[in-house]
């Protein structure tokens, strides 16, 4: 919403500088994009160079066919000679002149110059040259009663500022100059002038019949018939206001409807009355497939939810959004039906979304416009139509369903103070609410500060409850006056859960191991699980399925790093996967996944680390899955690991993925002390010859089972396959540590334990102790 400040000042006085106005509005009412100066720069006496002039002579430039050479009376003893490129005037015209020394809005500085051999002392102005409009086809023609040399700033709004505000959805009342003026008056406690508009006399013609078939969609319809309309260009002040408010001037009738919309926020529409079949209007929903060519020339195919304005039975406008082409006001129009109606917001929003058609009108309707503004708008538009277009108001009618009564709510000033956290005097609260248009019941000085408040109609959608009034008090009294306090805690909690702490430790451990953390998309192009959840309307082909594994994203991240030439690539991610579930919502599980240069054993080292972190001994079993090397893949209780299949990512990458809830499931709440210091451990090396197929893990498992907990550790330190062994055999060398917390182990103790192990391994796995 763009509002010229001079327009705002028509309705409200304020003393504060414009940046203070902007600051206050921004904090208390609506986002202020900026306040910008527009038009001719008002500095360094620049405005003095702009005056009115009367053309004394105008003839073709002797050396240029497309230029005129003019003698212009600018209020000085001698006329000024000015070369001009426009032809929409002749001798006798009153025009706007910029004299040498003037700086135009585009920065151009005028000088006395020679144009094709003739002196030109200034410029006869078109509206776009002084930012009064966008027209450039001809120069501005001013009223003939102006005497030459009159300062132009007295005649035209040469210099102004425009306030640009962004209004939140709950404040459609601020999408209007008058509404903003009301807000300014309330914020600065100054007087708001009454709304503009005085009804012209009404003729005695039969009113245009109005038939509302859907009063839910259109609770009010004011129709006013005008005759004798002379379609013409609007006066300069009107054109300039629209231009500066960001709208294009079209013709007087259309401009008036737009101007009044901007004044009150209630959009209007003008029909060419003679083109309405049966000179009647109605409001109904469209039939499916019904068509209407709107003003923009597009043929719209309608649905049963769309609200229409019709004449006899034909659609003539898409209610609240855009008029129809056939009943548009044109240069030939002389009779006009002015529509000042009210439309229900949600239906309008749906239609404008469906048709992807947003207009100044729909933007207001979809936020909800006060039906009471329609009457003000009708009155003001009528006054302007009569005074500007020479029209006569023939008849008027106002069809309305029972409009909702203004909301009323109890209000306790003490409650407002308590919620804001600042003691605000009850009478001050009342006064500021009254400035906003709220009405109070009960004696003026009700000592307890408890009232019943009636909401002004223009706030009826937004303010219905006591808490809504609390907001009004807080923002108008001043959010900057609210102090800084902290909640008074009576009970203290707030710590990470064990799971959250462990998740952090997982991240930290991997970072310590040289992995960097990746973030990859939760949505993938596809997933290994055919049941993975799909978006019916994907974000894109790459982002369509809620992943059940982190691996695809990690492979992409690793490939990206390889492709850009990074080295030492080790990445992990801790994020959720989404497993399809019978219970409606997916089972969201935290996973940690990693990818690293170097193959299976590098990945295994990370998986060992993660298990060590939670003091769990993992059991690795051979497995297979399509993305992994068939001979280098394993699973553990909480997940899997392996070397990435070269067809997925070439170059020998290790990858793993662990379900954190499973990993954390057996983490003891506390770890108990074990005495590993007092009595020294006995270390022995044992080498066994076994079948080549036997996993070392099985051998260790058997050793641990044979010796019991006194075998504190058994670690593979060498594997040998070769000539010195019979075919199909390998040697596995173990380093074992026996340790007791009850006493020092003797050589005899160690021998007994060692024999137990040797016997068990021989029995279970045919292992032979190597000499």
């Amino acid at each position: 919403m763009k509002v010229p400040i001079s327009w705002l000042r028509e309705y409200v006085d304020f003393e504060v500088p414009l940046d203070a106005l902007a600051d206050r509005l921004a904090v208390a009412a609506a986002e202020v994009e900026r306040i910008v100066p527009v038009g001719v720069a008002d500095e360094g006496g620049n405005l003095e160079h702009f005056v009115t002039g009367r053309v004394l002579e105008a003839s073709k430039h002797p050396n240029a066919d497309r230029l005129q050479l003019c003698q212009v009376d600018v209020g000085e003893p001698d006329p000024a000679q000015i070369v001009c490129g426009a032809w929409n005037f002749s001798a006798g015209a009153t025009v706007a002149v910029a004299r040498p020394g003037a700086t135009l809005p585009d920065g151009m500085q005028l000088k006395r110059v020679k144009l094709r051999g003739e002196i030109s002392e200034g410029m006869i102005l078109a509206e776009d040259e002084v930012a009064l409009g966008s027209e450039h086809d001809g120069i501005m023609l001013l009223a003939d009663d102006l005497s030459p040399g009159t300062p132009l700033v007295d005649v035209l709004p040469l210099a102004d500022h425009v306030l640009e505000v962004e209004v939140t959805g709950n404040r459609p009342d601020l999408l209007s100059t008058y509404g903003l003026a009301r807000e300014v008056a309330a914020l600065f406690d100054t007087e708001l002038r009454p709304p503009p508009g005085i009804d012209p006399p009404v003729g005695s013609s039969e009113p245009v019949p109005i038939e509302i078939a859907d009063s839910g969609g259109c609770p009010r319809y004011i129709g006013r018939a005008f005759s004798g309309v002379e379609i013409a260009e609007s006066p300069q002040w009107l054109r300039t206001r629209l231009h500066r408010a960001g709208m294009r001037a079209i013709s007087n009738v259309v401009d008036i409807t737009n101007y009044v919309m901007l004044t009150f926020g209630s959009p209007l529409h003008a029909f060419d009355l003679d083109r309405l079949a049966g000179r009647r209007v109605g409001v109904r929903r469209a039939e499916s497939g019904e068509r209407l060519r709107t003003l923009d020339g597009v043929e719209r195919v309608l649905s049963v939810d769309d609200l229409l304005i019709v004449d006899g039975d034909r659609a003539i406008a898409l209610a609240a959004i855009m008029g129809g082409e056939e009943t548009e006001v044109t240069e030939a129009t002389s009779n006009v039906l002015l529509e000042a109606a009210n439309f229900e917001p949600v239906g309008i929003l749906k239609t404008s979304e469906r048709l992807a058609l947003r207009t100044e009108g729909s933007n207001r309707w979809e936020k909800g416009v006060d039906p009471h503004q329609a009457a003000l708008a009708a009155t003001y538009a009528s006054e302007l139509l009569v005074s500007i277009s020479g029209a006569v108001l023939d008849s008027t009618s106002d069809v309305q369903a029972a409009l909702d009564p203004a909301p009323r709510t109890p209000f306790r000033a003490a409650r407002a103070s308590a919620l804001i956290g600042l003691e605000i005097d009850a009478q001050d609260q009342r006064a500021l609410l009254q400035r906003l248009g709220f009405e109070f019941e009960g004696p003026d000085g009700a000592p307890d500060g408890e009232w019943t408040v009636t909401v002004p109609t223009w706030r009826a959608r937004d303010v219905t409850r006591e808490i809504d009034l609390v907001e009004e008090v807080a923002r108008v009294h001043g959010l900057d006056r609210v102090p800084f306090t902290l909640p008074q805690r009576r009970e203290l909690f707030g710590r990470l859960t064990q799971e959250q702490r462990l998740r952090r430790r997982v991240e930290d451990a991997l970072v310590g191991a040289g992995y960097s953390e990746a973030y990859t998309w939760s949505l993938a192009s596809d997933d290994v699980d055919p049941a993975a959840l799909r978006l019916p309307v994907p974000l894109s082909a790459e982002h369509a399925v809620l992943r059940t594994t982190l691996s695809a994203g990690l492979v992409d991240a690793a490939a990206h790093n390889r492709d850009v030439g990074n080295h030492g690539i080790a990445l992990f991610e801790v994020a959720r996967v989404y497993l399809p579930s019978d219970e409606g919502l997916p089972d969201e599980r935290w996973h940690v996944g990693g990818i690293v240069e170097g193959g299976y054993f590098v990945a295994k080292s990370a998986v060992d680390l993660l298990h060590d972190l939670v003091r769990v001994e993992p059991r690795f079993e051979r497995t297979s899955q399509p993305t992994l090397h068939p001979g280098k893949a394993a699973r553990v209780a909480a997940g899997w690991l392996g070397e990435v299949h070269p067809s997925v990512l070439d170059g020998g990458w290790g990858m793993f993925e662990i379900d954190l809830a499973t990993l954390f499931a057996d983490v003891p709440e506390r770890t108990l002390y074990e005495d590993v210091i007092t009595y020294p451990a006995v270390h022995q090396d044992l080498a066994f010859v076994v079948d080549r197929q036997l996993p070392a893990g099985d051998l260790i498992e058997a050793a641990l089972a044979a010796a019991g907990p006194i075998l504190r550790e058994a670690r593979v330190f060498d594997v040998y396959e070769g000539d010195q062994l019979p075919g199909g055999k390998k040697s596995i060398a173990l380093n074992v540590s026996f340790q007791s917390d009850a006493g020092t182990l003797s050589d005899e103790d160690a021998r007994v334990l060692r024999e137990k192990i040797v016997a068990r391994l021989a029995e279970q796995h045919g292992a032979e102790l190597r000499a």
Partner: protein
Amino acid sequence: MDVQALEEEAQNAIGAAVSADQLETVRVQYLGRNAVLPQALREVRDKETGRTLNEARRRLSEAIDARRDELERDELERRLSEESVDVTLPGTEKARGHLHLITQIRRELEDIFLGLGYEVIDGREVETTYYNFTALNMPTWHPARSPLASLYLDDETVLRTETSPAQIHTMEQRDPPIYMVSLGRVYRRDTPDATHVPIFHQVEGLAIDEGITLADLKGTLRHVMRALFGEDREIRFRTHYFPFTEPSIEPDVSCFLCDGAGCNVCRHSGWIEMGGAGLVDPKLFESVDYDPERVSGFAFGLGLERIAMLRHGLPDLRQLWENDLRLLHQF
């Protein structure tokens, strides 16, 4: 025999020895089996002379040990000094990992709120429309509900568009007081560009207790902003509109780059927009059966990516998802 002269001679020889070998030669010469002093000691008969000789031998023996230690120290020093390295050469290479910038910011925020006694609640990412919209007082026609704005799995299931559904779950599960924050991924149907990625991260907080005020929200957010952007920061509230809060505000933090003087980051206003907040709309209490006359609350939401952009100067959010080690290693 002039013991004194002999000792003096020996002491001089000890002092003059400059290597272990020389010292050994000196030792053999004066204290060796066939040297003068040991021989004299073997032959001495009177007690007085014996003591004198003995003491002389002891002193020489100590002097030799001391000199040997000294020579060994010197030798070590000399060897070490020969081993000196170029101290500017790089340290032993060891793989280094880094937490993602957003995780670092996430933890920082979690820690700030843990310090304020808040719980961290990880909500679901896939939610019902009830928890994501309806219970947050968003009317059926609200634009955020449009499939053009949000990612639906079906009519009733949506990828959360903010982390606040966790607040409704928490309120349903227990009575006030509640002090909680939820952080994590949220989803919107945006076209990726420098400042938008369809997946981003928010922190949303909720405090419900007896006597919670707008002033408490102001004090809390100022604490958070100072923790994030420095102790000199100020905050201001601007009125705004959200369906789930009343009054609704947007907090601004005073620009940490220009200190309020105006710069490009704060668009020459001196203030930087930081998110949304307000007092919890009593409407939200209806469905969870809280008494708005007894308790009140505040809620707020901030974007983690916004903090990353503002505080770290990150120019393009898409880079957060590229996982390029060159970027990850910066933070």
